C-alpha cells in the first residue's frame, strides 16, 4: 500500500544517542521512585498498622488522598507547590523524582501492608519471645517475609511505574518520550519516532512482565 | 440404552481409562465403585461427552458420543447428571435453577416450566424452598434440588457422580431415598457411589474399577457373594468395615 512508503525509519539511527539519554532519565526516575517508594511505602504501611492512632490516621489519609487523584494532577501540584515552599525554582527532572517517589509510596504501601498482614501473627510472637524489640522483629522477621511474598506484585507495580514516568512530559522533563518528541521535531519525522518509542516501551514492559510471571511461577513452587 | 465400548482416555501422557466396556439396558440401575483416582468420575463424564476420549465409542440411545457430528448439547439435554458438589447455579433461585434449562434448551413456555418445577420440588419434598437461593439450603437439600433440576429435563437416563459423598451423614439418607424412588420407578441409572447399602437395595449390577480399568462387572448378589477379584474383595472389606 502506498502510504507505507511515506515512512522513513532511517531517521531513527542518528537520533539513538539522544533517545538513549531520555531512556537513561526514564530508568533513573523509575529506579529512584521504586527504591524510595518502597522504603517510604513500608514506613507508611507500618504507620497504618501501628497502634498509635494519630500516626495511623495521617498515613491512611495520605495513602487514600494520593490514590484518588490522577498522577498527572500530582505531577502538576508538586511542580507548582515545591518552589512556592522552597522559594527557588526547581528543575522539571528533580521535581519529577520527588513527585514519583511520594506518589508511588502510597501504592507501594498498600502492597507492603498486604504483605505484612500475610505474615502469620505467630511470627511476631516468636520474634518477641526471643526478646526482640518492635523494630528488630519487623526488620529481621516480618518485613523480609512480607517482601518476599509480595515481590511479584512489587515488580508489577514497578512496571506500571515505568510506564507512568512518561507523564513527566506534562512538565517538560526530558524522559524517553520527550526525547523522541524533540528528535521527531528536529528531523521533521514525528510519526516514525512515536512508533519507535512505543516499540521500545513495549519490548521493555513485555520482557519485564514475562520475567515477573516466571518469578511468580517459581516462588509459587517453593512455597 | 448406554453402551460403552473399549473406551480409553489419556490426560497428556497419563492414561486414565484403559479399554473400558460395559452396557446398561433400559430400566437398569448400575453402581460403579472403586478406590479414589481409579477413573470413575472420568468414565461417567465420558458418557455424556463432558470429557472427550481418544479411543473406543459410547452409544447412548443409538447416538454415538464419539462422532464429531453428534449434537452433544441436544443429547445432554436428555441425559440427567448429578454432581458430587451439587453445582446448582448460585445466582438463581431454586425455581430458576429448575426452569432455565427447560426454557432455554427445551423451548418450553415459562408457565409450563414453572408448573413442572413446582411438581418436581414437591416430589423431592422442597416446595417450601422454591424462592430461596442455593446458598441458603443445606447440602442434602441442594442435592435434592440438583436431582430435580436433572429430572425437569425429562431425561431418558440419569448419571450420578458420588451424589452423597460431600454430604454430612445425617443428610445422606434424604438424598438416597429420592434415588431409591427413582430406581423403583424404572429410571435407567448409572451411579458412582460407595453407598453399598444403596447398591444392595436397588442395583441390578455393580461395576468395580481400579487403575482406569473395569475389574469386575457382576450382578449385585454375585458381587456381594464370594467369587470376585482380590482387589475388589480388599476394597469391600475396607469400606464395609466401618
Amino acid at each position, binding site marked *: 500500500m502506498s*502510504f507505507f512508503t*511515506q515512512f522513513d525509519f532511517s531517521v531513527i539511527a542518528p537520533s539513538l544517542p539522544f533517545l538513549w539519554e531520555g531512556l537513561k532519565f526514564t530508568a533513573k526516575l523509575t529506579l529512584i521512585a521504586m527504591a524510595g517508594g518502597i522504603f517510604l511505602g513500608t514506613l507508611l504501611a507500618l504507620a497504618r498498622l501501628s497502634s498509635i492512632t494519630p500516626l495511623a490516621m495521617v498515613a491512611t489519609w495520605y495513602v487514600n488522598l494520593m490514590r*484518588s*487523584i*490522577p*498522577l*498527572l*494532577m500530582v505531577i*502538576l*501540584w508538586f511542580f*507548582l*507547590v515545591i518552589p*512556592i*515552599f522552597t*522559594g527557588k525554582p526547581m528543575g522539571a527532572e528533580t521535581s519529577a523524582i520527588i513527585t514519583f517517589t511520594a506518589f508511588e509510596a502510597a501504592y507501594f504501601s498498600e502492597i507492603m501492608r498486604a504483605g505484612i498482614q500475610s505474615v502469620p501473627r505467630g511470627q511476631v510472637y516468636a520474634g518477641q519471645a526471643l526478646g526482640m524489640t518492635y523494630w528488630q522483629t519487623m526488620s529481621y522477621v516480618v518485613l523480609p517475609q512480607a517482601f518476599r511474598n509480595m515481590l511479584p506484585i512489587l515488580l508489577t507495580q514497578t512496571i506500571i511505574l515505568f*510506564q*507512568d514516568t*512518561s*507523564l513527566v*512530559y*506534562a512538565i517538560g522533563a526530558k524522559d524517553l*518520550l520527550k526525547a523522541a518528541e524533540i528528535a521527531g521535531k528536529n528531523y521533521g519525522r514525528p*510519526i516514525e519516532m*512515536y*512508533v519507535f*518509542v*512505543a516499540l521500545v*516501551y*513495549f519490548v521493555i*514492559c*513485555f520482557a519485564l*512482565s514475562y520475567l515477573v510471571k516466571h518469578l511468580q511461577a517459581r516462588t509459587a513452587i517453593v512455597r | 440404552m448406554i453402551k460403552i465400548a473399549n473406551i480409553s482416555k489419556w490426560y497428556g501422557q497419563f492414561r486414565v481409562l484403559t479399554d473400558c466396556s460395559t452396557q446398561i439396558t433400559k430400566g437398569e440401575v448400575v453402581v460403579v465403585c472403586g478406590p479414589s483416582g481409579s477413573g470413575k468420575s472420568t468414565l461417567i463424564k465420558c458418557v*455424556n461427552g*463432558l470429557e472427550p476420549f481418544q479411543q473406543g465409542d459410547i452409544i447412548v440411545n443409538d447416538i454415538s458420543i464419539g462422532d464429531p457430528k453428534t449434537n*452433544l*448439547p441436544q*443429547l*445432554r*439435554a436428555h441425559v440427567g*447428571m448429578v*454432581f*458430587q*458438589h451439587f*453445582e446448582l*447455579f*448460585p*445466582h438463581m433461585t431454586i425455581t430458576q435453577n429448575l426452569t*432455565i*434449562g427447560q426454557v*432455554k*434448551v427445551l423451548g418450553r413456555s415459562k408457565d409450563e416450566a414453572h408448573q413442572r418445577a413446582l411438581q418436581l420440588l414437591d416430589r423431592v419434598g422442597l416446595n417450601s424452598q422454591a424462592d*430461596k*437461593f*442455593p*446458598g*441458603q*439450603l443445606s447440602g442434602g437439600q441442594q442435592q435434592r434440588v440438583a436431582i430435580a*433440576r*436433572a429430572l425437569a*429435563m425429562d431425561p431418558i437416563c440419569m448419571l450420578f457422580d458420588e451424589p452423597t459423598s460431600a454430604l454430612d451423614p445425617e443428610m445422606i439418607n434424604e438424598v438416597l431415598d429420592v434415588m431409591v424412588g427413582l430406581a423403583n420407578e424404572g429410571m435407567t441409572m448409572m451411579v458412582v457411589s460407595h453407598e453399598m447399602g444403596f447398591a444392595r437395595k436397588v442395583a441390578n449390577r455393580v461395576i468395580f474399577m481400579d487403575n482406569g480399568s473395569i475389574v469386575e462387572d457382576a450382578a449385585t448378589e454375585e458381587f456381594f457373594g464370594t467369587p470376585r477379584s482380590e482387589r475388589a474383595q480388599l476394597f469391600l472389606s475396607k469400606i464395609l468395615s466401618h
Partner: protein
Amino acid sequence: MNYHWNWGIFLQQVQSGDETYLDWLISGLGWTVAVALAAWLIALVLGSLIGTLRTVPNRGLAMVATAHVELFRNIPLLVQLLLWFFVVPELLPRDLSLWVKQDMPAKEFFTAVICLGLFTSARVAEQVRAGIQSLSRGQKMAGLAIGFTLPQTYRYVLLPMAFRIIIPPLTSEFMNIIKNSSVAFAIGVLELTFQARQMQEDSEQGIETYLAVTLLYFIVAFSANRGMALIERRTRVPGYIGGAK
C-alpha cells in the same frame, strides 16, 4: 512562603472573555465525565469479550485475545494516545485519512475515548478472565450437562457469577479510567486537567486552582465508587460469600 491567596478567583472573569474561571472548570468536569463514561462503555464491552475469549477451548481465539491484552497493557497510556492521534490517521486509506485529519468533528474527544477504552479493555479483560477461572470446573460441566451449548453456558452460568465476583476490581478500574482520562489534555481535549493548567496560567492562582480541581476529581471518583457499591449490593446473591442470609 509568600503566596497571595485569592479564593474569589473562581468568580472572576478570564482574561480573554466573559466566562468565569468556574465556567472553565465546570465545562472541564463535563468533558472528563464524558470521556470517562464513553471509554468505560468500550472497555466493559470489549474487555468482557476478550476476557471470555481467553478462557474458551480454542487456541486461535485465545491467542488473539492474549495478543490484545499484551499489546494494550505494555505501552504507556500517553504513548498510546499520541499513536492514536498522530500515527493511526496516517495508516488509514487516503480519503479517510484526510477526513480524519481535517473534517472529523470532535476528533480529540473520540480519539481519547477510543484510546482510553482500548487501554482499559485489556485490564477489564484480565479481571473477567480471572473471574471466570475462579469458578469451579463443575459449574461449566453442570451447564453443559443440562444441554446448554458453550455460549449458553457462558451466558447463563459462568458470566453472571464471574461479573458478580469481579465487581470490586472493576470498581477500581472504573476509578482508574476517571483518573486516566486526565492524559487526554495532551491532545487538547478540554477536560479538567487541561482547564486546570489553563486557569493556573491565566489566573496565576495555582494553589486555589489545583485544590478545586483535585476536589472535583475526588467527587467524581467517589460518586463512581458509590455507584458501583450500589450495583454490588443490588446483585448480591443470598447465601453466597458476603451475601445476606
